[in-house]
């Protein structure tokens, strides 16, 4: 069934594919987290135009399959003269898609912060920026960390969609190895095991962060 010799022969190739997948996930996650946080803050703004623009963005992005968005960046943007490498195109598409989900996660965290604390900070003379930085975001992240963790685990798995536009990451590497060896079971068992190892490792890191933050938990 499982050909260990084949795994031994191709594991450096598969691990390189996994490294590329991790890079896609890490860069997409960074875009998703930074942009999602900004969008989450903007979605809570008093400026209704800004808040509605964010809502429109997240509705559109969440309503279209990520695969279509990856293909859009890979195939449609070059038609308009915007040339971007397949790798960075996939990162951009996955990151922008993630930002829409992160936006709503962060928004729920922001709304969970007691308004009274914001008023207390305001009476103390703190600016909106200081209130956001010291009062709102630290508590919001604490509340939404489990949901953010799920989103990032999903991103690692979603990075496999980059293979459809030719990015040679773990799934694509597995397909190439399969075509060379014709051993479907061994190759995809190995690929699946590597994805599982990556998501389990990420989950463990998130659990550690949750425990650390739990020691300073908001009561």
């Amino acid at each position, binding site marked *: 069934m499982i050909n260990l010799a084949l795994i031994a022969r191709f594991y450096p190739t598969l691990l390189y594919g996994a490294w590329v997948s991790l890079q896609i996930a890490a860069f997409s996650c960074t875009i998703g987290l930074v942009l999602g946080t900004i969008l989450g803050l903007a979605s809570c703004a008093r400026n209704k135009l800004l808040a509605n623009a964010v809502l429109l963005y997240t509705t559109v992005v969440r309503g279209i399959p990520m695969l279509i968005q990856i293909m859009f960046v890979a195939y449609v943007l070059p038609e308009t003269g915007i040339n971007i490498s397949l790798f960075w195109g996939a990162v951009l598409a996955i990151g922008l898609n993630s930002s829409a989900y992160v936006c709503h996660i962060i928004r729920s965290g922001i709304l969970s912060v007691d308004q009274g604390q914001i008023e*207390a900070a305001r*009476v103390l*003379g703190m600016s909106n920026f200081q209130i956001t930085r010291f009062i709102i975001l630290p508590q919001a992240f604490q509340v939404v960390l489990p949901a953010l963790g799920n989103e990032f685990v999903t991103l690692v798995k979603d990075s496999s969609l980059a293979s459809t536009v030719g990015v040679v990451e773990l799934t694509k590497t597995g397909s190439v190895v399969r075509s060379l060896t014709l051993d479907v079971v061994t190759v995809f068992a190995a690929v699946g095991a590597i994805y599982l190892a990556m998501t389990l490792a990420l989950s463990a890191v998130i659990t550690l962060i949750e425990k650390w933050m739990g020691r300073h938990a908001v009561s």
Partner: protein
Amino acid sequence: MLSLKNIRKRFGSRQVLDDVSLNVARGEVAVLLGASGVGKSTLLRVLACLEAPDSGAIELDGVQLDQERIRQGHLVGMVFQQFNLFPNMTVARNITLALQEVLGMSAADAVQSAKHLLEQYGLAGKETSYPRSLSGGQKQRLAIARAVAMKPKVICMDEPTSALDPLLTAHVARSIMKLAEDGYMVLLASHDTELLKRLNCTIYLMEAGKIVQQAPSQEFVAAPAQFPQLNAFVQGVADPDTL
């Protein structure tokens, strides 16, 4: 001397503050007494710049102040009903945050200042604790220390006893009187007549957004019959329609 002159505030069709005027001298405690919803908290929120008045003036030592000036000068401190401490920060950080970020104090000076205040308010040794581990009374003292740290001229306290065990009323009264002794102008909103009995203050009875009667607490205690509306409220026989 703090002077509020003809403060008016409307929420929708409801006139929450209707031509409210009062004076509070340095070292004086003024108590806004009245049932829930008569405008006591709104008046404090106007003073603390959390609500803008529709009209009226706020003067401090004869100088008229707009809310921006009150905010920038950190002239008003507020102790909230639910204390509104920052639960993600230690007790000391609750105090040092604004000292460093707003007043620009160095970390060392802010920590020193916080330590001194915590000692003063009976919270020595609690610097590294989190607010969730404090009792109700300790939380309130921390909230007072946090407000006092900014060296305001006026301290507002919203329902200082409502979130605490009734047994703590005497402690709260002592904390309030200490603020007055330290030279602050203290303005508090309460419907707690037990607290009132323990304070040397000026009482302002509010009904439907207006101050309907005022009395020095000692005069009221000595001759309650001279202040019929106030006496009715304290005796718990106020007209239910006004509550």
